[in-house]
């Protein structure tokens, strides 16, 4: 009884502090720009340069991809590495825990609840959705520098397709079960592919990730072709890494979960 009382006091104090901080933030926040204004600091200097020069510099019509994969390619490389590290960490933390076999996992899913999405029809419908998501993921990947798309989104979509196939119980043939080791190797291959894309221009006398000096394409003047190739290679690396890490985290948790708890 006393414990719940002190909890209530703690909660009240916390709410009071948060309201105070919020009120002061609102008071100070009047310097924040009006939503939708054209001349705010965030919309002025760098962003104007990117918008007006992206197509000419990088031949990428998607300006977000141009910023992400070309202007800030080095930043995205380390972002990918951070993701890869998080996957390795998750595997390392759980590596001492015993795996529960795949068949038993499926059976326990079936024992506990007959259907993941509440009915047989919903389960079947979600299984039909899987190939469509796969096709859409590939589309998003190869449209990275032309229209809406990009590596991170494509990786999430492909991993989502695998996830749906993995968690819905089925007695028919399913996509081959990927272990967390193979998924982690896939992610590492993606990150390595990114680094190799960065090193290739150096063989031709350029800087790291300088797509103008990539050693293929029709000569040095072909900026559009070289930049499209470079961005696409980077997107493939990022896609592999994101897909691998999502599947790794899913598998490493799912393989070791005891559904009897």
């Amino acid at each position, binding site marked *: 009884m006393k414990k719940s009382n002190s909890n209530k006091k703690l909660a009240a104090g916390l709410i009071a502090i948060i309201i105070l901080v919020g009120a002061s933030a609102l008071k100070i926040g009047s310097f924040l720009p009006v939503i939708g204004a054209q001349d705010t600091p*965030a919309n002025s200097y760098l962003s*104007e340069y990117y918008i007006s020069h992206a197509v000419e510099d990088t031949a990428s019509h998607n300006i977000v991809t141009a910023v992400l994969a070309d202007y800030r390619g080095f930043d995205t490389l380390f972002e990918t590495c951070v*993701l890869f590290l998080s996957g390795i960490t998750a595997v390392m933390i759980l590596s001492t825990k015993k795996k529960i076999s795949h068949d038993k996992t499926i059976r326990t899913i079936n024992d506990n609840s007959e259907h993941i999405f509440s009915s047989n029809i919903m389960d079947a419908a979600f299984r039909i959705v899987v190939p469509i998501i796969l096709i859409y993921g590939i589309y998003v990947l190869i449209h990275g520098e032309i229209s809406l798309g990009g590596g*991170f989104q494509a990786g999430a979509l492909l991993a989502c397709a695998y996830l749906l196939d993995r968690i819905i119980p089925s007695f028919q043939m399913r996509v081959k079960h990927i272990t967390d080791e193979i998924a982690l190797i896939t992610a590492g291959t993606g990150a390595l592919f990114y680094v190799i894309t960065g090193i290739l221009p150096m063989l031709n006398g350029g800087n790291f990730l300088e797509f103008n000096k990539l050693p293929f394409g029709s000569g040095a003047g072909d900026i559009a072709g070289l930049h499209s190739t470079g961005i696409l290679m980077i997107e493939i690396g990022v896609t592999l890494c994101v897909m691998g890490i999502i599947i790794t*985290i899913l598998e490493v948790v799912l393989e070791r979960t005891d559904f009897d708890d």
Partner: protein
Amino acid sequence: MTDIIDRLEFFLADRGIYMLALILFAVGIYGMIACGNYMKKIMCMNIMQVSIIFFFLTFGQKEGGTLPIALENIFSAEAYINPVPHALMLTAIVVSLGTTGVGLALLMKIKDIYGTIEEEEITGKGGK
């Protein structure tokens, strides 16, 4: 009275969306401190990250701007919304995925050692 309503409408149209980001952030912080269950703490951390992403994305908006996909022959900055916050927050979303994954792995380890993920029971037991 109508004066107050007018000013409120003006405020909501101008900077009202910052309120939403602030409320989400407060909910996240409150949950991270007050919830006793570690799973709920991770979920609250995610809510907080979403509020930060939301806050950054509001900076990118422009009145009358379209998606940052360059159209033929239109290269003026007024025609497109700001691509920089989108590029930055895309990577932030991916990092939040990584932190959630590591958090889940740690959670399973805690469940193994202590047999529970409630903070009160773990501090009451005081170790193995």
